[in-house]
């Protein structure tokens, strides 16, 4: 049972960056208006930010990080670790994007830098990873970069996912803090569900070939290629409404806390219908559960920090907040964090 506590670590600031290019789902000409309206009503996504060709997740994350380092007045030599959590690296994993970012951000060469290719659960995993390094006290500060240009992964003609995923990158600065209670986590994995969210070809199991780009129509009428995202919406829905409430409850029971001890519960922005089920199962009131889904869609590992920046900025800057953060998805992988934040630095949303 992965219940973890990383003491002496606190979040110092959070920033997020999205492409300036906004695309409205009602303008989509590939699908029937009735289908689009049903999608918007149930899934809750009206518009998406889509990165232009040539704009990578790293570009969004670097812009977010630059702003955050500036507003927190951080000495770049204090950053000892940088982790890039993403499934849309600059290159096909050679080299790791985090290494390139170390140089772009002019961080010290004494910095640990590596990529973690997780998706929707990635923010919670990234927090846990950096907090684990920091809590020993040997590294002062760590920078967590998360996000994806997830809009580029589905086939445009795939109704199950092409109106769902938006692009975003976020940066979170964590530091060693002896006064801090730290971060609490519950983390879990079920690889038996790996096919629920998958790009079947292009990895080393089935190498990329010309056939990887050939379109075919699935039994459900979805147009895909073996190199595009294959989302089994039913499996994911079933997984989300069952496991997300369980992981939250498990951590809350372990810490002996109730909904009264939570100011905000920020969930991965998967789909309105799914997230509302999760909220209701936990008995959380609407005002404690913010959404960025409507204007930004599902932004993979960036969805939790993006929601914090766009929906909770004033509260995070002005008061101490007790947060429950829960990410769940591709892997299948999921996790929950509970932490208290003193007022933190939250720059305004950046558009690139």
């Amino acid at each position: 049972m992965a219940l973890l506590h990383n003491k002496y670590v606190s979040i110092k600031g959070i920033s997020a960056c999205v492409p300036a290019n906004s695309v409205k789902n009602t303008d989509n000409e590939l699908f029937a208006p009735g289908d689009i309206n049903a999608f918007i009503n149930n899934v809750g996504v009206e518009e998406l930010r889509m990165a232009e060709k040539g704009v990578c997740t790293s570009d969004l994350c670097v812009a977010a990080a630059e702003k955050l380092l500036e507003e927190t007045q951080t000495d770049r030599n204090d950053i000892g670790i940088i982790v890039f959590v993403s499934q849309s690296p600059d290159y096909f994993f050679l080299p790791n994007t985090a290494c390139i970012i170390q140089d772009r951000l002019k961080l010290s060469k004494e910095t640990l830098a590596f990529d973690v290719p997780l998706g929707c659960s990635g923010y919670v995993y990234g927090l846990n990873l950096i907090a684990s390094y920091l809590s020993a006290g040997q590294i002062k500060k760590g920078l967590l970069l998360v996000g994806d240009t997830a809009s580029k992964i589905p086939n445009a003609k795939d109704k199950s996912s092409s109106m769902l995923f938006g692009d975003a990158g976020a940066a979170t600065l964590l530091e060693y803090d002896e006064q801090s209670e730290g971060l609490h986590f519950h983390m879990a994995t079920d690889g038996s569900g790996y096919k629920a969210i998958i790009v079947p070809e292009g990895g080393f199991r089935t190498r990329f070939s010309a056939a990887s780009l050939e379109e075919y129509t699935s039994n459900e009428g979805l147009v895909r290629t073996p190199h595009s995202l294959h989302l089994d919406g039913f499996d994911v829905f079933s997984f989300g409404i069952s496991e997300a409430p369980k992981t939250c409850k498990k951590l809350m029971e372990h810490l002996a806390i109730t909904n009264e001890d939570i100011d905000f519960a920020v969930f991965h922005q998967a789909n309105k219908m799914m997230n509302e089920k999760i909220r209701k199962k936990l008995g959380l009131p609407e005002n404690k559960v913010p959404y960025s889904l409507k204007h930004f869609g599902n932004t993979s590992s960036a969805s939790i920090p993006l929601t914090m920046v766009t929906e909770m900025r004033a509260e995070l800057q002005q008061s101490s907040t007790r947060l429950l953060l829960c990410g769940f998805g591709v892997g299948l992988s999921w996790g929950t964090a509970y932490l208290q934040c003193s007022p933190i630095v939250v720059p305004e949303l950046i558009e690139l």
Partner: protein
Amino acid sequence: MDKNHFLQSFAEQFDDTDPSTITLETHFKEMEEWSSMVALMIIAMVDEQYSKKITGADLREANTIEQLFERVSSK
């Protein structure tokens, strides 16, 4: 799990279909009102009432409501 209770809960997920026309033998994916959104409602209903998970494969492979019931009740 009670088969008739399952049928009743299944039928409640439809807005415009007369519940009395839905039976255990109904090929649910051929119903006029069937859609992926109704499928999500069914998944949520089974999770809520029976604490069981319906997968995409369950929905693809079962044709009648009874077949779906058998798959769910054997979990």
